[in-house]
């Protein structure tokens, strides 16, 4: 499985597990609202290893790491560092004890330079003044030492995501971290950037650092780690050496049952053209060009996937088609009729369903009930309204049927949606959108923040809708997801479609990654030949 040669084991790693570098013993965490996040978790990390911590959302791995990093206090249990009991009450205390953390949402100040961010809080100073030259020199020296290339004088908000992540790692190293906690570091990276990150992690290990790697991408976990700990339902269900583990076993440990990681799907039965987009242009109110002439076609009974690093116009493309943003120019046709410039409601009535990428703000109304969320696009129509009055019985019947059909785990439909887990919340959205009998379904990041079980369910639903003849436009930052689900695959970069593959057969993530980075571009005629 691994493409890396095993690194030379450091002496401490060959020691028995008796004196681990970090040991969390019997950690229990109960939040004030009664949620049990960790239950008697014992977790040990040896010096010089890459230790992966995997588990579904809500399994408790973030809580465990927040406790280690001093952001949360355990209700019970003890932390040992280098064999000695210790307490960590704040991130600052964690840092002084040599523990650094790279958060998923970067903790950077956007308008500050990279050097300023690296030294923030512990700046080299002359009196009350910051010694900027010393800060830049320190950042450059550190970057050089660990092979993490950054431009110390560039502002953080203009550099790519991969570099921002390196800044975060350097920030931790600048503060003398020996143990680095990386929270889902590859979620925002292209395959190439992921590869670079892994090389950098290997280098950190060689100079004696220890890395805790939180992830749910099992193939990455198998590639990079020495040992893997799996969490489920607030408990640590096991720690495996890499050679004992495989993806299937890990998935089973995470979910607690057999999981089908591969998406079963028959070849697409492509029907007539449903969505036709030509030369779509869009700029934000402040004048930033986001879509620079996007053209694509989606046919009935197929899934057209759009891959790309986030922020290359995918969000805007989806929202323009869904009627949430007004394009500057271009053609958007549904079954031959223009839907450009229509209101979202008119677009929906024309037969477009939309699973928005930001579920919490655009997908559901958190304080409204499941029943209400399931009818927000149709409450003005029969049978939910008659004579201007809502009909509670019909609304309740509708929600009961959908809760059952989409296996939404909720006691009843009157519960506010905000009380549901991410996966069940997404099921509410999917149930509403698919039950509207759409001709076109736009699914943006449909499985983001959703656990493996629910992901499996979403994938099944998408394939089922496709087989029923719905045209599906799928946008996902998860490259393996978009590659395995799509019948045809487009790649977006800098507001343009830079590649369109008529099939995903034989396509590798690395190949797609080159287009995502913009290093490769298909000719316009080749793209058009696949329209």
């Amino acid at each position: 499985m691994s493409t890396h040669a095993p690194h030379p084991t450091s002496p401490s790693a060959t020691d028995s597990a008796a004196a681990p570098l970090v040991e969390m013993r019997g950690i229990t965490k109960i939040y004030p609202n009664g949620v049990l996040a960790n239950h008697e978790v014992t977790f040990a990390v040896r010096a010089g290893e890459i230790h992966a911590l995997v588990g579904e959302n809500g399994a408790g791995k973030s809580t465990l790491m927040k406790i280690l990093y001093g952001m949360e206090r355990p209700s019970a249990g003890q932390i040992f560092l280098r064999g000695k009991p210790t307490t960590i009450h704040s991130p600052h205390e964690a840092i002084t004890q040599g523990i650094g953390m790279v958060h998923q949402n970067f903790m950077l100040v956007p308008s500050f330079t990279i050097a300023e961010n690296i030294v923030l809080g512990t700046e080299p100073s002359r009196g009350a003044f910051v010694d900027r030259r010393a800060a830049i020199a320190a950042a450059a020296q550190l970057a050089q030492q660990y092979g993490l290339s950054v431009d110390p004088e560039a502002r953080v908000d203009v550099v790519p995501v991969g570099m921002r992540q390196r800044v975060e790692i350097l920030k931790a190293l600048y503060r003398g971290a020996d143990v680095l906690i990386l929270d889902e570091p590859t979620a925002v990276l292209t395959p190439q950037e992921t590869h670079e990150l892994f090389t950098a992690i290997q280098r950190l290990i060689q100079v004696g650092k220890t890395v805790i790697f939180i992830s749910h991408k099992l193939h990455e976990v198998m590639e990079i780690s020495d040992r893997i700990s799996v969490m489920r339902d607030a408990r640590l269900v096991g720690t495996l050496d890499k050679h004992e583990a495989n993806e299937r076993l890990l998935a089973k440990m995470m979910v607690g049952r057999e999981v089908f990681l591969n998406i079963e799907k028959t070849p697409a039965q492509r029907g007539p053209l449903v969505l036709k987009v030509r030369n779509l242009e869009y700029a934000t109110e402040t004048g930033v060009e986001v879509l620079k002439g996007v053209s694509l076609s989606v046919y009935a009974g197929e899934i057209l996937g759009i891959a790309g690093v986030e922020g290359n116009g995918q969000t805007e493309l989806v929202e323009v088609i869904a009627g949430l943003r007004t394009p500057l120019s271009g053609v958007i046709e549904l079954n031959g009729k223009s839907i450009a410039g229509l209101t979202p409601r008119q677009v929906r009535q024309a037969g477009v369903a939309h699973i928005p990428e930001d579920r919490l703000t655009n997908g559901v109304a958190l304080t409204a009930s499941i029943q209400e969320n399931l009818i927000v696009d149709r409450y003005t129509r029969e049978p939910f309204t008659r004579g201007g009055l809502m009909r509670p019985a019909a609304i309740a019947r509708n929600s009961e049927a959908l809760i059952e059909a989409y296996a939404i785990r909720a006691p009843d439909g009157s519960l506010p949606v905000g009380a549901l887990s991410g996966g069940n919340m997404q099921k509410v959205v999917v149930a509403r959108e698919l039950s509207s009998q759409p001709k076109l379904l736009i699914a943006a990041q449909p499985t983001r923040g959703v656990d493996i079980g629910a992901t499996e369910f979403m994938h099944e639903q998408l394939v089922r809708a496709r087989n029923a003849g719905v045209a599906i436009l799928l946008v996902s930052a998860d490259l393996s997801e978009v590659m395995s689900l799509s019948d045809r695959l487009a790649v977006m970069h800098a507001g343009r479609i830079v590649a369109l593959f008529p099939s995903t057969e034989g396509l590798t993530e690395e190949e797609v990654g080159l287009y995502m980075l913009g290093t490769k571009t298909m000719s316009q005629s080749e793209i058009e030949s696949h329209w």
Partner: protein
Amino acid sequence: MEQALQAIFSATFVAAVLRVTTPILLPALGGLIAELGGVANIALEGIMLISACAGVLVSIATQSEWLGLLAGLAAGIITALVLAFFHLDLKADIILSAIAINILASGGTIFVVFLLTGDKGSTSALVSRQMPFIEIPIIKDIPLLGPILSGQNLLTYIAFIAVAGVAIFLYRMRAGIHLRAVGENPDAARSVGINVRSQQYLALALSGALAALGGVYLSMGYVKFFARDMTAGRGFIALAAIFLGGKTPLGTMIAALVFGLAEALSVQLGNLRVPNQLVQMIPYIATLIALVVYALVQRQRAIAHQRRFRQAPTP
């Protein structure tokens, strides 16, 4: 008309611009610090009023302008700290708390003045002190420049020196850099051990101090008494100057000068036979126009883009 033009293109007019810019610039610099610290302070108006009042009353009682200045400063800082306590410790909404302070300041100052002097309008019947006006040797004898740069009130000099001071504080000093980090990404600041709460206390205290200087200038420099609601919206115009100035010290100063120019103009025209009510509207209309222009400039690029796209031939 000729008379008016003559008045405007004179050194005394430019000197007047600096004079009326001072009570806008000082609170604007304070508001800028608070804004960049992530604690927008819209209580500048109220703080100015309280400081203007406290300064005059103490200077009447002690017959010392310096004790008056000190009292004004203390009153401003304490008021700002009260706002900070409500917002940062009691978790009250900062806008609502600031509105409460503004209303309290308007009624409270005149109440105190009435209690102490028996006058509900102003303290002009009593002898209060003024901050010194400073003649700068050599410069004062330069033609044209002399009358502009020399002979201004001490607080006017302080206001313009404070522009550089605030810039150095915000961009070169540890405390200022930490303060901006807190304002931009409090989680990032917290994660490197910066105390967000104390930085925001500092930001509000500094904004209170600068607004206080603006208030003291009004009652102990610009004029020599405290009058009901004498700030006349300058604390709010200062807020407009911050945003118009792109949230930088230099930009804020330029914006404050633009507003100062408008106000000086209204003073000049007031001497002519133009209806008084019309003339007094000038500073406020200038603020409105400036904000509209600002919004239009912001959108200009977008409009240019759209035009370009529309003209592009669609194949």
